[in-house]
């Protein structure tokens, strides 16, 4: 069995000071988001519009996708459809093979992470260079990204420096981010200029015009796409929006929610290939149509991948992205991934305090914490929780539904914890792993209330 969130989180938090750094850094990003959001009096109105546009789009999705395909084709873009990750990878590989291409650059695309495209292509002997700085860092280290917007947020500059020393021959011990970024700029400029094919993601695809928008701060998607003779843009089908005017709502929300910037540096609108360029779009399902059919979970497909829910999540901030063992971590990942593989990801909806902060910051109003709670119920009813948890839950349900038994158990617990604390605070009770025993109260609230009612 694959390691689960709690085990992986335990590894992450072994280094206390790094855990605190991670926690503080992401909270700082969350605060920047707040400042940006509070700068617009219409913020809540924008969220409502975004939510309604996405709800409407999902309710008319097949028409919008057909419209998009028709208009994209008229623009000279070649449109492909992939039912799952394998088919996506085969389509991309087919295009590469047909052109006999060796040099490929790729900008950030969570979809290609979800489909494990790099792995697939490397099995075919094809190397892909990830060009987002954070993604390049984790690619050198043979790690997956730990955050969808900040892929290397789990690393310190010292670690980056060591990685660059090894791969880019930078000065040993020089941890200056400016110096390291400059080294990556030079290294990746060469890769861009050599590249024959560029793969990008898609932030928004416009049904009305058959074009798509890609947002970056670094300019790496554009450097690749405008150099290469072949551009492949991969998108999950939920990236569709009806009209160009709706971009105003989404672009106003996206960067502010993600990093607190008013807009990303580049918001590139692609409609036609350059002369002599080939432009492809691969529209991917990979379980999305199944999720669309789950009434309780379908609105997770409204997500615009801003990662605001990551940055605010007390569990994500203290457990790191790798503990989620999936391409998309954090609260949104925990409601998307059980749809992809319920058994392998059965632990994720439990990696949450259900505090609801994710729902409050979500720019498209996905009820994330409610879906986490609902997934727990589905997962338990499918029998996908551990025997220990199952027995514990059943026991608790039995006790909580019998008031007399509950009162007796309470009295017994207070007595036991006072006299024999080790009975509850031991290795078998994981709840106490990182916790101190509370002081045992003398009486329950009920006892206190009955005693004081008359006074």
């Amino acid at each position, binding site marked *: 069995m694959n390691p689960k969130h709690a085990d992986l989180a335990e590894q992450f938090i072994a280094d206390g000071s790094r855990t605190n750094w991670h926690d503080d*850094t992401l909270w700082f990003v969350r605060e920047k988001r707040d400042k940006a959001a509070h700068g617009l009096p*219409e913020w809540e*109105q924008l969220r*409502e*519009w975004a939510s309604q*546009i996405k709800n*409407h789009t*999902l309710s*008319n*999705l*097949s028409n919008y996708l057909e419209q998009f395909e028709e208009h994209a084709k008229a623009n000279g873009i070649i449109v*492909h*459809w*992939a039912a799952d990750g394998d088919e996506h990878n085969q*389509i991309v590989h087919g295009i590469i093979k047909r052109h006999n291409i060796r040099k490929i650059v790729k900008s950030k695309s969570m979809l290609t992470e979800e489909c494990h495209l790099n792995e697939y292509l490397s099995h075919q002997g094809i190397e892909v260079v990830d060009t987002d*700085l*954070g993604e390049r860092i984790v690619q050198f280290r043979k790690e997956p990204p730990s955050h969808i917007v900040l*892929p*290397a947020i789990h*690393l310190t*500059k010292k670690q*980056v420096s060591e990685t660059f020393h090894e791969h880019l021959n930078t000065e040993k011990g020089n941890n200056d*981010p*400016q110096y390291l*970024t400059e080294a990556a700029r030079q290294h*990746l400029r060469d890769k*861009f*200029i050599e590249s024959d094919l560029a793969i990008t993601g898609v932030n928004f695809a*416009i049904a009305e015009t058959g*074009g798509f928008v890609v947002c970056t*701060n*670094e*300019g*790496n998607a*554009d*450097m690749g796409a*405008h150099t290469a003779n072949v551009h492949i843009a991969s998108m999950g*089908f939920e990236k569709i929006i*009806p009209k*160009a*005017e709706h*971009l*105003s*709502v989404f672009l*106003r929300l996206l960067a502010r929610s993600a990093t607190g*910037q*008013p*807009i990303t*540096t*580049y*918001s*590139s*609108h692609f*409609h*036609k*290939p350059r002369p002599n360029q080939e432009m492809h779009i691969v529209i991917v*399902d990979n379980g999305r*149509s199944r999720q669309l059919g789950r*009434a309780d979970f*379908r609105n997770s497909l409204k997500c615009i991948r801003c990662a605001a829910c990551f940055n605010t999540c007390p569990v994500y901030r203290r457990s790191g992205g790798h503990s989620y063992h999936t391409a998309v971590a954090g609260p949104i990942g925990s409601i998307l991934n059980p749809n992809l593989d319920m058994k392998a990801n059965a632990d994720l909806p439990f990696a949450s305090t259900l505090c609801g902060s994710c729902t409050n910051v979500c720019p498209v109003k996905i009820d994330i914490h409610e879906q986490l709670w609902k997934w727990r119920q589905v997962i338990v009813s499918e029998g996908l929780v551990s025997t220990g948890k199952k027995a514990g839950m059943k026991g608790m349900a039995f006790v909580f539904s019998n008031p007399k038994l509950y009162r007796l158990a309470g009295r017994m617990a207070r007595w036991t914890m006072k006299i024999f604390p080790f009975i509850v605070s031991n290795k078998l009770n994981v709840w106490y792993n990182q916790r101190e025993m509370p002081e045992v109260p003398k009486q329950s609230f009920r006892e206190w209330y009955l005693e004081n009612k008359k006074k």
Partner: protein
Amino acid sequence: MTASRNKILNSIKEHQPDLTELPVIDIGKVIGYADTFEQFRNVLESIGGKVVSLPDWDALQQLVNEEKQQENFIINAVPELGEITPEVHNLTAVQLEKLEKIYVKGTLGVAENGAVWVYESHLLNRLTAFICQHLVLIINKKDIVGTLHQAYEKIEVNKEGFGLFIADPSKTADIEQSLVIGAHGSRSTTVYVIE
């Protein structure tokens, strides 16, 4: 592939919920700025860009002429600044890699976020805006709108094959959240605003 297309579309048709309405985006409800230029300048400078206000084109024309005398590779893509550098659309990435600076005409500026819309034809070549070391954008003061809502009313996203909003120089904070200007794109962006 057609099989997958139909499979996906049929599955979506089967699973999509009942039709809901699109909201009406009432621009009357969004923020307005008393002085759009001031707002534009403040925002852009806060995110690393530079804004210079000019009464007319004269000073810029002089600047471009002087720079053209030097050895650096400069492209002028603005007719108001003199002769447009020829054959730029045919240049490859290898040739453009030496590009020091390009002067580009922006269609409009957006006060709320400091972004400038640029059409492909004004870049001469899609790559120029990204591969240059320094980007100079020029807009008319009267073309600064309040928010993206007004901007999208004025531009036509599919008028040309490519177009974009550019706000400030390229940047990254991927190493320990330390902001570094000059990631892959330009190291600096200056926007000249003509009165």
